[in-house]
């Protein structure tokens, strides 16, 4: 070994042990400096300190034995090499680069893995969250909010999930505004959902990807509610665009309320199941969001609306603009587009080919969908 390993390497290795949730990791790292903590855990002495034993209830001895066995197979050197190779930084609570807004969090992460520039979080931040199974309306609103807030210099924080999350980040990336911030549930080298691979890369390049999960961590279901609390902690305002009565956004909203973050909701149709939760929030007294200006007012920022945030030239008037308008934000089949526009299949196919070339639409399984 030419150089001694930094504390981050040992913290990252500890985060990768089985059964190591945020509270346990916090207790272990509070009990000893990271390098010594690794040694103690590997020796099976983790639960000799009372706070650690408390965090590992009810079977503290079993957890200590599990960690000891896992630590014998793992090596901080290998974990650290993996991070360096993936370009992933390890941020320790209270150390440089760690988001300041999480310092006084009631349940802060002990370690954050990051891809991109960690300084990006220092700025105004709004979380845009919602259901994966959103409607065309929700997708459009999320895209526009993301775009206009980013254009106004506000960092859009979201979870890179399908539906609302992805639309908000696509919007934020469509303008040369504030960098986007994503908090994901899996390890930073495990792209989830796989279809968001390019969006994932774009966010890492333009902004910041954060995860509490160690490299290689699968997107296990328990990680998402845990992730949602970090998302809520990072935001100053949480905007729920669409969510069903029992959606995952509920975790984020509850975590935001515990942290005194303002929660805002986009009103929806009273008949739409994916607006049931947002409408219930409004009935309970949440502020409604009609457009980005409502959010900017909540942040105490200028209320001058951001002029035309989309930097790209609009598509050619005529067939292309007509087809794009007829497509809207819902997937549509080729013949639907012919019927909606009243144009011939030839005209529609040429328009779609040009729109696809220019990055406005994409095709999947015979369905056309607007992507920009």
């Amino acid at each position, binding site marked *: 070994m030419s150089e001694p390993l930094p504390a981050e390497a040992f913290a990252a290795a500890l985060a990768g042990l089985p059964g190591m949730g945020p509270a346990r990791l916090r207790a272990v790292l509070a009990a000893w400096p990271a390098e010594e903590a690794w040694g103690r855990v590997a020796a099976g002495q983790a639960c000799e300190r009372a706070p650690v034993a408390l965090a590992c209830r009810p079977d503290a001895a079993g957890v200590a034995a599990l960690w000891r066995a896992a630590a014998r197979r793992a090596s901080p050197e290998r974990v650290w090499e993996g991070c360096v190779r993936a370009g992933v930084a390890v941020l320790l609570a209270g150390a440089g680069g760690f988001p300041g807004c999480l310092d006084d969090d009631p349940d802060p992460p002990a370690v954050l893995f990051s891809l991109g520039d960690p300084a990006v979080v220092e700025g105004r931040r709004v979380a845009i969250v919602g259901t994966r199974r959103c409607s065309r309306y929700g997708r459009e609103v999320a895209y526009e909010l993301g775009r206009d807030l980013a254009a106004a210099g506000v960092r859009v924080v979201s979870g890179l999930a399908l539906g609302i999350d992805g639309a908000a980040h696509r919007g934020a990336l469509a303008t040369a505004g504030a960098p986007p911030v994503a908090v994901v549930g899996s390890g930073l080298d495990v792209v989830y959902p796989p279809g968001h691979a390019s969006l994932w890369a774009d966010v890492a390049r333009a902004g910041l990807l954060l995860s509490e999960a160690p490299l290689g961590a699968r997107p296990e279901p328990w990680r998402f509610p845990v992730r949602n609390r970090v998302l809520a902690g990072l935001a100053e305002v949480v905007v729920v665009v669409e969510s069903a009565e029992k959606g995952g956004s509920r975790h984020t909203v509850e975590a935001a309320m515990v942290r005194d973050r303002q929660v805002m909701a986009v009103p929806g149709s009273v008949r739409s199941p994916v607006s049931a939760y947002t409408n219930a929030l409004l009935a309970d007294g949440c502020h409604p969001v009609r457009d980005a200006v409502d959010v900017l007012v909540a942040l105490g920022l200028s209320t001058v609306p951001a002029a035309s945030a989309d930097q790209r030239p609009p598509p050619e008037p005529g067939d292309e603009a007509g087809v794009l308008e007829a497509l809207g934000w819902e997937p549509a089949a080729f013949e639907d587009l012919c019927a909606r526009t009243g144009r011939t299949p*030839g005209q529609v196919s040429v328009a779609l080919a040009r729109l696809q070339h220019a990055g406005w639409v994409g095709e999947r*399984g015979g*369905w056309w969908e607007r992507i920009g």
Partner: protein
Amino acid sequence: MLFLDEMAEFPATVLDALRQPLEEGVVRVCRARASVAFPARFLLVGATNPCPCGEGGAEGACRCPPGARRRYLRRLSGPLLDRFDLRVVVTRPDATEVLGGPPGEGTATVAARVAGARALARERGVGCNAEVPASRLDEVAPVVPGAARLLEYRLRAGLLSARGLHRVRRVARTVADLAGAPGAVSEEHVCLALSLRADLVAADAGDPPSHAGVRGLVSVPGSRRPA
């Protein structure tokens, strides 16, 4: 003509065994003493649901988990799908259409157009445009510069394979023949040929169209002339 209904219900090995006869038009049976080739020039038509429950059409109606949808369509391997000349997504018609929308063209009208296109193919010395060898494509099916740029972009972006390019050019020639357009193939006809080549494999590659997806597809492949 070989019609495979519910194509994705066949084991992948069975489907992939079709690749070689589709390409060469013969089935080879090799045993210890002899190898026999049987003629097998056929038109393959396949139909499949987009997912096991078959409800993938209406919004939110599909009851399949995403993994099941992926596994289902994965049985149609990329190389096999690449050998289909036409891949068409068939959507569920809405009620008004079923209950008597505007009538379509009569079969006799279409048959006359098809006969005309076949006659053009015979003038080129082939039974149908699918039999035009790749070496003669520049002569038989030249494309206008705008369409060439479009095809080049598709190739570079990985949206089209080399085999797919040849097939698209043959289909575009046929579309132009059916429309009565001699000479270089226009951008419109190339785009129509491309739109008859739905990207089914990518249907599972990621953020699915927010609710469900392909409702049904009919794929007409390697359209060799029926023997």
